């Protein structure tokens, strides 16, 4: 049961991202060409839903499933890593039209060439780990 809830949330996530076409290369291209509101609408509504939900959690001090207080973990402060890392990711996102979630979703859906993107992404993660201490953060 403990494992099942994560799998179920994952299934919903995979279906929603596919049916909203956020996993579609075409939708990402269309977004970066500013030729449709669709992707912007998805991100905006997701954020607004999240803001409202997190505010309710904070104000009503809602406990998590185990009865522990819910903590929102702050990202570490800084600038360079977010700008530079962000731009690197943006280049890849636009090129192959998928972010990490969709890479897995599309692979599960049976798009075999996605395996190349996954290998690349794992190798890219490895490269970061290798050069982490030499990079400006």
């Amino acid at each position, binding site marked *: 049961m403990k494992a099942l809830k994560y799998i179920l949330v994952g299934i919903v996530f995979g279906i929603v991202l596919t049916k909203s076409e956020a996993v579609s290369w075409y939708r990402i291209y269309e977004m970066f060409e500013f030729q449709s509101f669709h992707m912007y609408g998805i991100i905006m509504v997701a954020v607004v839903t999240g803001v409202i939900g997190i505010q309710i959690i904070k104000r009503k001090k809602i406990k998590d499933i185990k009865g522990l207080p819910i903590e929102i973990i702050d990202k570490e402060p800084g600038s360079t890593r977010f700008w530079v890392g962000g731009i690197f990711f943006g280049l890849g996102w636009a090129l192959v039209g998928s972010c990490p979630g969709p890479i897995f979703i599309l*692979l599960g859906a049976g798009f075999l060439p996605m395996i190349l993107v996954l290998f690349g*992404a794992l190798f890219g993660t490895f490269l970061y780990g290798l050069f982490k201490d030499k990079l400006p953060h």
Partner: protein
Amino acid sequence: MDFIFQTWPWYVSGFLIGMVMLCLIYFGKTFGMSTNLRSLCAMTGLGKKVGFFDFDWKAQRWNLLVVLGAMFGGFVAVHFMGDASNVSINPKTIAQLAQLSIDAPNGKLLPDTLFGNAIFQSPKKILILIIGGILIGFGTRYASGCTSGHAIYGLSSFQLPSLKAVIGFFIGGLIMTHFIFPLIF
């Protein structure tokens, strides 16, 4: 029941994505897909050689289960919930893609030009997909998050670093589609 097979509207999809994140927060976890790439690297035993991968990836097993579910969800949605009317993008976009000799969607999620099985015979396209992947893997770890962790989770909790990262995502994306695409396609 017809709506299930159509493209889900942005307000329904956005709301459900927000709810997925809130569910994970309620489970006492966070929302972030790119962390799984680090876990997968650590699972291979890389931690012995590279310090960055020397962490307790087993504590991240829940996230790998989310990904496993997402893969199954993608399978169900593509094989049982699709319709020829899907991916009806802007006709202007289709015309622009034709100029780059990229095929129109016609109900498909991905262009055959880049994701058809024929690409395995094209070294150029294999390279494009691998380089795209490297940029994603390197960039998300450098920025410590991707669309889910920064754009959704980070912005929802008003975190300034996430805003910087998201602006970075768009700078990178715009450079790619507007300046690099004409050079490679």
